[in-house]
């Protein structure tokens, strides 16, 4: 751990938080990242992408000490994240971390999620709630969906990834570069795993605990979940028959 922490000193890390109407959570999320940062992590910047929120997300994030890029209207999670990756590329960051704005990702795992990137062990690290037992309790339907995607991704890539929809992930410079050019605008989480596999990037899963959403409203409902599953499966199948270069 010591050697990796030494490496922290030189490498620029950007934590990207996509947020859409998260005024109830965003301050806490930014504060907890700031307070959780060790002195070794002085090169860590926080960037909130306000995806066209109509509440106080932007102001609260700025007051909490994050850098904020405000999109003029809602582009969706994929394009919001890509905005962060474009920013990361332009400002020459070595690592980009995605951390959701609803408070379910615990910033204390930041070092463990970034370390494999700094060591060069992986091109993308996914914080997974299923690698080890975690406190996170998910509903049966959600669990079934996760299992389904996990099976599908394993089938398509041969890489066993358990938590394919986790939005807690870190990527290195090569992947930042790739994502700033090409990142799916709809349903990106599972989709990019296949894309990265095709491009021979190495994906690693590490165990994290996730909390239940702290406040505000989740965008997930049972009907939407089923719709999501069908759409993502379709996207994945289309991707798998696409020729080498993925647009």
């Amino acid at each position, binding site marked *: 751990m010591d050697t990796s922490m030494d490496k922290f000193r030189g490498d620029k890390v950007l934590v990207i938080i996509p947020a859409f109407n998260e005024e109830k959570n965003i301050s806490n999320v930014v504060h907890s990242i700031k307070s959780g940062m060790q002195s070794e992590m002085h090169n860590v910047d926080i960037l909130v992408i306000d995806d066209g929120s109509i509440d106080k997300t932007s102001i609260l994030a700025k007051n909490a000490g994050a850098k904020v890029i*405000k*999109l*003029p209207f809602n582009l969706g999670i994929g394009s919001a994240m890509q905005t962060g990756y*474009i920013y990361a590329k332009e400002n020459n960051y070595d690592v980009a971390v995605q951390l959701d704005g609803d408070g379910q990702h615990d910033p204390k795992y930041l070092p463990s999620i970034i370390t494999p990137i700094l060591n060069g062990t992986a091109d993308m690290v996914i914080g997974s709630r299923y690698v080890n037992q975690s406190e996170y309790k998910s509903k049966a339907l959600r669990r079934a969906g996760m299992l389904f995607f996990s099976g599908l991704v394993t089938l398509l890539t041969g890489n066993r990834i358990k938590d394919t929809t986790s939005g807690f992930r870190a990527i290195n410079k090569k992947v930042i570069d790739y994502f700033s050019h090409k990142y799916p605008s709809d349903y990106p989480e599972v989709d990019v795993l296949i894309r990265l596999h095709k491009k021979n990037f190495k994906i690693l899963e590490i165990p994290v605990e996730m909390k239940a959403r702290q406040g505000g409203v989740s965008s997930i409902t049972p009907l939407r979940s089923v719709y999501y599953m069908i759409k993502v499966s379709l996207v994945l199948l289309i991707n798998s028959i696409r020729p080498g270069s993925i647009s």
Partner: protein
Amino acid sequence: MISIYTLAIIFSTFFLLIILELIRKNKLSERYSLIWILFGIIMLVLSSSPVFIEKISSLIAIKYAPSLLFILGLFFLIAYSLQMTMVISQQAKKIIRLTQEISILRDNIDSSKNE
């Protein structure tokens, strides 16, 4: 009684005139209007020579020749709406990219103002 052929000729002629007028007024860009002009001309030719479409109809076992006009029109509409969906998809991509770039640029401007 007015025949379907006469009706088709009248319709095609009006259609062509409308297209030309729209281009002239710059309400339709040349890029997307060529295919409409082409379509109008084809329909005009087909409807003005019954012999021609009757021949094609008998070749593919269509009993009522003018229905060939309908089926052609239908095919064209399907193909063209597919083309439109492609155009929209491309434009949506470009709009997203522009939005991202503008948001980052605006942020750059704001932060250089504050310094």
